[in-house]
């Protein structure tokens, strides 16, 4: 086992942003000839890690060693000099230039690039790693998969020894993704160190030599190469699912809520719901949620949860199927109509769509009731009523804000979530969809948010909680549905056996 020193080693690398620790003392090593897969949910800290390796960000603590020497990757140019190249999900090639011209970019500006020479070198490099490409082809005429292969070839032409593929397969067709996977294997056999970031477990297992799992900024575990070879794909999947979603705090043993009585009236029903979408079509969703019941929806991010929530809320058109609330069909209503019927949606995109950052807290609290009395009379605002409402909600939901006139965008993440909860949970809510309700919050706000969800259910609301944190669902939900590739692959009651069964459903064992 006389392995050479790892080409790059991270020692205790920490990166903080205001209010959040994006990477918390990460130790990791990347070796030549290895495909090292980085797994983790959105927000787990993969992008931050990549941006530090690419020289875009500097660690606050810890060191990055390049071949055993602590090195400051102070700029992207410096990282490139050291042979560190990154291929992103979206192509970084200029579509109106040929592949060879793209490869020639970055030369001295006064020098006329030697197009023929670049074409020859590109063809040669491509042939070496078994990629078929035409250097004189116009980039815009190629598929995304071909462009990414060209980007990899370009990186190698520039002497890359360390290649980061940041969700490079996310936008590819299955055929192109498989091609990229095989290319990764060939690169590893050429001695390149490959870092592959993906959401897809099957790719991780098929192409990876080593797996590291990030969660909430920390490295929670991994699978070493020897172990990886010994495990069957299925066993490896289960290991990874366990790492990604397994209990992190045995102390906070989830006390599953008591089951809802069988006689509780059904409040929200989805009947054979289909939602057309280019990336994740949602199909054949049948769900019922009873009064006072919390239904969890588990699954890896990007498996149609957001699309489903938006379709129920009315933001996204349904291609077929029906939705019933308290027995009445609401699929013909628009967002406002569904809200008036009692349907509420707490979005996870709190700044992007949940609030208007530049508008005051008081207006954001009424964002879904603009024009409604008593806050507007005959379409004209009544500032006294608007402020009165804001003061009452700020107090009731403990929103920490300097003033009700402070722009909502200036609040912290936890307080913005409180603002959204205040907006959605007041009035006559009958059914509430919570999308990743504790994502990005600190512990105190997580606890406060979970309490609000329980209270809402306690008042007789039907609640749907979409979460990628299995522990959260085990703590909150009465039943848990597992969503994968736009389908509900199973619904299990939240009992002692739930964790194992959900893990099986996620890894496709029981599908």
């Amino acid at each position: 086992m006389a392995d050479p020193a790892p080409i790059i080693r991270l020692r205790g690398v920490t990166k903080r942003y205001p209010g959040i620790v994006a990477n918390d003392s990460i130790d990791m090593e990347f070796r030549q000839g290895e495909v090292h897969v980085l797994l983790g949910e959105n927000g787990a800290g993969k992008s931050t890690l990549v941006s530090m390796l690419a020289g875009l960000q500097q660690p606050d603590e810890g060191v990055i060693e390049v071949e055993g020497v602590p090195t400051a990757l102070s700029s992207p140019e410096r990282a490139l000099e050291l042979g560190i190249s990154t291929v992103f999900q979206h192509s970084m090639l200029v579509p109106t230039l040929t592949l060879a011209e793209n490869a020639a970019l970055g030369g001295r500006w006064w020098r006329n690039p030697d197009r023929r020479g670049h074409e020859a070198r590109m063809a040669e490099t491509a042939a070496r790693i078994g990629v078929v490409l035409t250097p004189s082809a116009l980039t815009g005429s190629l598929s995304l998969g071909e462009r990414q292969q060209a980007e990899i070839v370009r990186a190698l032409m520039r002497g890359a020894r360390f290649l980061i593929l940041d969700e490079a397969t996310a936008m590819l067709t299955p055929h192109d993704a498989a091609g990229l996977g095989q290319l990764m294997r060939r690169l590893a056999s050429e001695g390149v160190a490959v870092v592959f970031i993906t959401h897809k477990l099957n790719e991780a297992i098929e192409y990876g030599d080593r797996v590291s799992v990030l969660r909430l900024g920390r490295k929670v575990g991994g699978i070493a190469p020897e172990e990886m070879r010994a495990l069957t794909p299925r066993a490896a999947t289960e290991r990874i699912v366990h790492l990604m979603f397994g209990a992190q705090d045995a102390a906070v043993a989830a006390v599953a809520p008591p089951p809802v009585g069988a006689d509780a009236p059904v409040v929200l029903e989805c009947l054979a719901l289909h939602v057309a979408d280019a990336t994740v079509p949602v199909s054949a969703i049948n769900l019922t949620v009873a009064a006072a019941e919390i239904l969890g929806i588990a699954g890896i991010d990007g498996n149609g949860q957001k699309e489903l929530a938006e379709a129920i809320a009315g933001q996204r058109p349904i291609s077929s199927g029906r939705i019933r609330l308290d027995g009445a069909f609401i699929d013909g209503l628009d967002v406002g109509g569904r809200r008036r019927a009692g349907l509420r949606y707490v979005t996870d995109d709190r700044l992007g769509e949940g609030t208007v950052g530049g508008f005051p807290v008081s207006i954001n609290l009424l964002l879904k009731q603009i024009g409604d009395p008593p806050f507007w009379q005959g379409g004209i605002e009544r500032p006294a009523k608007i402020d009165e409402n804001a003061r009452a909600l700020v107090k009731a939901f403990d929103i920490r804000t300097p003033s009700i006139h402070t722009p909502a965008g200036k609040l912290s993440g936890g307080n913005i979530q409180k603002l959204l909860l205040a907006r959605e949970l007041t009035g006559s809510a009958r059914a509430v969809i919570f999308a990743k309700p504790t994502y990005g919050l600190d512990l105190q706000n997580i606890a406060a948010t979970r309490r609000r969800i329980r209270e809402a259910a306690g008042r007789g609301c039907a609640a749907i909680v979409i979460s990628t944190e299995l522990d959260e669902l085990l703590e909150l939900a009465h039943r848990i549905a597992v969503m994968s590739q736009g389908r509900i692959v199973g619904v299990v009651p939240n009992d002692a056996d739930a964790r194992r069964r959900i893990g099986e459903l996620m890894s496709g064992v029981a599908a």
Partner: protein
Amino acid sequence: MTTETTNLTSGGLPPRLRAALATAGLSLGPMIGAFVLSGLVLLLMKVNPFDYYGYVFQRGLLSPSGVQATLTRMGPLLLLAASLIVAFRAGLWNLGGDAQFLMGAVFVAAWAPLMVQHLPVWLVLVLSMLVSVVIGAIWGLLPAILRAYQGINEIITTLMMNFLGISLSSALVKLVFADPDTTVPQTRTLPVGDRLPVLFGSNVSSGLVIGLVVILAVHWMMTRTAFGLKLRVVGANPEAATHAGLSVPKLTLAVFAISAGLGGLAGAVAILGQYGNVRADWNPAYAFTIVPLVFLARFNGYAAIGYVFLFSALGIGSESAARRLDVPNYFTLVTVALLLVLLAVTERWAALRRARKGV
């Protein structure tokens, strides 16, 4: 701004007054700077800046006939400012104001002189303004539909509609609406007695009152009504608008209808109050010159009135100064452009200062 001033330790002035002074300084400083810099440009042109600005202000602000001309010109300019405020606050960059203005003007100039022979004058004036609103709105319809339902950038489409609209109005004047009694390609002329009434025995057209009423109404609508708030939500964050259940396409159509309609109305007020007819080659390009003023006013109706007054006075005055000192009319635009640049610089500087104080 208030946070900045409370951090300053000097002085015993109450914070409100200090904040007001700071705001005034941030607005007046760039204005003085703009006059100084354009004065330097005048020096390069071998023109005495004091002479130049002396003539400008004497004519535009101090002579009775000049003030009246300044106020009369404000009418259409205020309507165009109102048109832009609605659109810009809703995040829609309607830059097609020139064509909307001209189309409104051409149709009114074609129809009003004929109708006064059959209908009471007041009715003709009211109907003419309605016609201009409808014509302007129609000219804004195509960019509106493309933006609302296809997501096509309205900057490009409204600019293209400008080329079409300016050429079409010229063609209409020459081919369809031409006055058969003259050899010059122009529409029939609305007799002076049948135009918008003048104010209190002066020569100021009541178009000024229409402009003031409309821009104040627009300001009130955007800041105080539910409809205006909905438009501002669409402008500030379209995703949030969709999430809150607002119909972004329908609101987009409404914004374009109002904005382009006001553009057309501005054309009508220019014809009915001031010009009386349209020549085939006429295009004052008011809408484009108003764009920087609306930005300077930060989409605020009251501030826009102030800037429009200043610009109008500079414009009228520079016409007089141009004749005497041989400085092109367009020199006013140099002053406005310098003002815009200096204001941006001041704003950036103030933001940096706030950032350094760690606010």
